[in-house]
């Protein structure tokens, strides 16, 4: 299967500080990969590089055969850690925006997700609760039929019931052959859905393996492994 994401020897420094050092991994189609690490591990730098928000790096980053930039962004659906959709938009306006700018956006899918979650679409996003805003953002992002989904802390600020719903939404709606890169530090809830996990520590990959293999060979959960690997990091 063609690789959806290919990263080779990616390094990025901010002056003296090495944010990423010689990072290499591939994600074939149809996989859900966890990007695991604490704050400051380089996850955000890596994601920004993939999204074309950082250009000054060394190494190779290839998404669906393209370099990062506005061309590649056609095939990537991005859910950042912040609420990126203008909050004065109504939900309907946000949907119209996605229809206008993304060819692969499936309006029916997003609308049905929002209906299931009982989200009032004519309300401004800023009038909705934090949990509902996250659900709106996720519905828009998963409504796209992209090749790569980059989800940065999708369940971070949400209550447990909503977490389950979000995980269910992700599992049901990503297209076959597409892949998901999921960055998180809340591992226990999410580990059963991961194909593989990349542990990033101080800008370097310390472990990069299939989830089930880690369980079979080391007899630990990803959560336990995470605590072990990052024990001395804040």
């Amino acid at each position, binding site marked *: 299967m063609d690789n959806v994401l290919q990263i080779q020897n990616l390094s990025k420094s901010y002056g003296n500080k090495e944010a990423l050092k010689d990072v290499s991994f591939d994600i074939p189609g*149809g996989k859900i990969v966890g990007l695991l690490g604490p704050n400051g591990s380089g996850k955000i730098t890596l994601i920004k590089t993939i999204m074309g928000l950082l250009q000054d790096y060394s190494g190779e980053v290839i998404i669906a055969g393209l370099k990062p930039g506005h061309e590649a962004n056609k095939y990537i659906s991005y859910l950042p850690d912040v609420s990126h959709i203008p909050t004065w938009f109504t939900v309907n306006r946000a949907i119209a925006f996605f229809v206008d700018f993304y060819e692969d956006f499936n309006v029916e899918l997003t609308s049905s997700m929002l209906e299931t979650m009982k989200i009032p679409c004519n309300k401004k996003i800023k009038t909705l609760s934090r949990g509902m805003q996250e659900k709106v953002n996720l519905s828009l992002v998963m409504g796209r039929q992209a090749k790569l989904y980059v989800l940065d802390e999708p369940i971070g600020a949400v209550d447990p019931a909503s977490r389950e719903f979000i995980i269910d939404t992700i*599992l049901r709606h990503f297209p076959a052959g597409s892949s998901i890169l999921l960055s998180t530090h809340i591992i226990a809830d999410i580990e*059963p*859905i991961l*194909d593989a996990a990349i542990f990033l520590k101080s800008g370097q990959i310390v472990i990069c393996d299939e989830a*089930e293999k880690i*369980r*079979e060979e080391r007899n630990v959960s990803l959560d*336990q492994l995470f605590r072990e690997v990052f024990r001395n990091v804040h």
Partner: protein
Amino acid sequence: MNYNNQLPIYQQIIDNILLSIAKGDLLPGEKVASVREMAANFKVNPNTMQRSLAKLEEMGYLFSERTSGRFITKDVGIIARLKSSFPQQITKKYVDEMMEYGMIKDGIEDYVKNYIERMDGNG
């Protein structure tokens, strides 16, 4: 379903589905939902679910028809063997534990009889 994340999840899914077949929650010949659907229901990765279903097919508990999907086996023999295998497993576990505790054959039987009689007595 709650998983023990320290052990391979695909195996836990297999065990769960076998139990459902043994208990009769899944009937012989019943159609199994798609991999996607199953994965979402079980809250696991679709590739993991695929691995479990493939293994179950290999073991003979599922069969697939190219166009119509996957089904629970109609082989009553294999299901009957499965059904009895659970009580056997549980018994084995119980007896092994009792023996580890120092119980011997007659003692074990007495404990079981007393317990069941008490249950009957309490209604």
